[in-house]
């Protein structure tokens, strides 16, 4: 299999582009126009072809198959067998699935607002730059480009027994138990790591939006004696709203798909207290090889994504009026 579809597909389409020039001696105008159009169409098709093929094979096909497989019994090596909504029924009766759904939603609802709040405050604080502020900005963005494997390794230590958090805890007389071993605190630990790795991104998006805010209005409000809180509520926040919605949607979708951190830091434990949907999908699919059941979870994830997008659409639609 060639890794360069672009190169191997190129030659056969050579002829059409050569058409316009050879029939130069008999210049019938409409025909020429047509052949130019044609040439353009061929070139266009040829240029999208490699990417389109990859999309069909690796995105459209698998997306469709993934959503359909939820209605099949399928084990690797076997032929898929249609079972209707059987997989979804089994999920509905499985307490582990409900735990995973609950854990995922709680994680999202804790993580997204916290992250957005921090991003907003930080964007406002670094808004007017200086050399120092500029340097701080680069520091805040550093976790965004750090791999989750690295983050999981460091925070594994950070929250471990004897690590910084547990040392402070025991100094306060709260015992040295690791957050990662506590059924209630484990989600909080994951939220901390997730916010750490993502707030710099939100900050930059909001900062870019803030730079577009007209200075004159704010100056006018200031001379009218509006407090900074009033200026934020009535001027800056409405201006930021579209960017905040954009962030809310991508952060929510991403939080519903959390996998790496959980897989690496807790493995879903203790007692499934951090067992998220995608971890469930991974374990059923790649450990138990129940491809049908895993795809059914994928279907649930898809519906969750659609709901988030629908809410966004509804909110933005209402916002415009």
């Amino acid at each position, binding site marked *: 299999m060639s*890794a360069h579809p672009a190169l191997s597909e190129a030659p056969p389409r050579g002829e059409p582009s050569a058409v316009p*020039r050879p029939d130069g001696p008999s210049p019938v105008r409409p025909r020429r126009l047509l052949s130019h159009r044609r040439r353009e*169409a061929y070139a266009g098709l040829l240029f*999208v072809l490699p*990417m389109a093929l990859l999309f069909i094979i690796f995105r459209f096909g698998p997306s469709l198959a993934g959503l359909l497989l939820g209605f099949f019994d399928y084990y690797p090596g076997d032929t898929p067998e249609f079972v209707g909504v059987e997989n979804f029924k089994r999920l509905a009766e499985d307490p582990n699935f409900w735990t995973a759904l609950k854990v995922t939603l709680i994680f999202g609802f804790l993580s997204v607002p916290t992250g957005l709040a921090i991003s907003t405050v930080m964007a406002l604080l670094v808004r007017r730059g200086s050399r120092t502020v500029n340097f701080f900005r680069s520091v805040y963005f550093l*976790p965004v480009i750090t791999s989750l494997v690295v983050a999981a390794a460091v925070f594994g*230590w950070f929250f471990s027994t004897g690590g910084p958090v547990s040392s402070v805890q025991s100094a306060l007389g709260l015992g040295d138990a690791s957050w990662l071993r506590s059924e209630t605190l484990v989600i909080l630990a994951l939220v901390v790591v997730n916010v750490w790795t993502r707030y710099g991104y939100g900050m930059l998006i909001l900062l870019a939006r803030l730079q577009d805010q007209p200075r004159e209005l704010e100056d006018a409000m200031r001379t009218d004696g509006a407090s900074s809180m009033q200026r934020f509520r009535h001027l800056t926040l409405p201006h930021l709203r579209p960017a905040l919605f954009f962030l809310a949607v991508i952060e929510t979708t991403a939080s519903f798909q959390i996998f790496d951190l959980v897989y690496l830091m807790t493995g879903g434990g203790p007692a499934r207290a951090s067992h998220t949907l995608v971890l469930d999908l991974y374990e059923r699919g*790649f450990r138990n090889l129940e491809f049908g059941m895993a795809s059914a979870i994928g279907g649930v994830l898809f519906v969750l994504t659609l709901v988030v997008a629908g809410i966004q659409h509804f909110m933005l639609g209402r916002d415009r009026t």
Partner: protein
Amino acid sequence: MTHPVHQPPQPRVTSRRRLRLDTGTPDAGGSRLGRAVRLGTLALMAVLTFFPFYAMVLISFKPAGAVDFPGILAPWNLELSAYQRVLGGSDLIRWFINSVIYSLVSVVLVLLLATLAGYAFAKKRFPGRSGLFWSFLAMVMVPYHVTLIPTFAMLSQLHGVSTWWGLILPTIANAQAVFLMRQFILGIPDDLFEAARIDGASELRTFFTLVVPLCRPILATLGVFVFLWHWNDFLWPLIMARKTDMWTLTVGVSSLQEQAAPFNVVFAGATLSLAPVFIAYLFAQRHFVEGVASTGIKG
């Protein structure tokens, strides 16, 4: 749309410059106290954000037994034993090379194919153009994890598991890249392409001598992020690279963690895996930060 494809880069070039110019302006509002509080908050946040990096790098230079906190964070008694162990006792160098191959080959392929497709979507009229473009974009609505099992099943039938093409090709179909390239090329005036056509330049020649050079700024930004996505990618190599000699750094370092290697050894591996990204960030920070600010691309 639920993906970081939010605004076209072209029209924002001016605000991008403003973003930088603005950094020079002195502090405007607020009393002296307000400013001190603000800078204090910023500094505290910077310390909290940076602390994990400091701890990781420092502990990677400590002996294996040292775990006492906060003593372990003192910058002395440093040694290289963790690095000797991780470089000598594991396939770390092999994983490093694999990560380089996975990332670089993907960057080249994504940039080439996304520019070709973006150019066609922006400037060529052909049947089915808008339908195809919107169906590309619609794919961002389907969570990546939905495609995981069918893609894996298909590739294992084709004997693509633990092969380079099986690992790389599925990651090239990147809607965000195509979208960004199309938006950028839309902003290039048609006259330029028209002139090239009248000069009799072939389509491919026009593409390589005109389109690609004009796209240089967006290609740099996109290239940085495609590299980052692949360098940091964990789940796909975890599933597809089933032999240790195919592992990437992310999978390899996580395996050190799973074997319960001491913290200093895991951190030595983690530090080595972060180093190239960190160095690139030091030198090409502009592309990272302004890339996000002007295109909404996700790190």
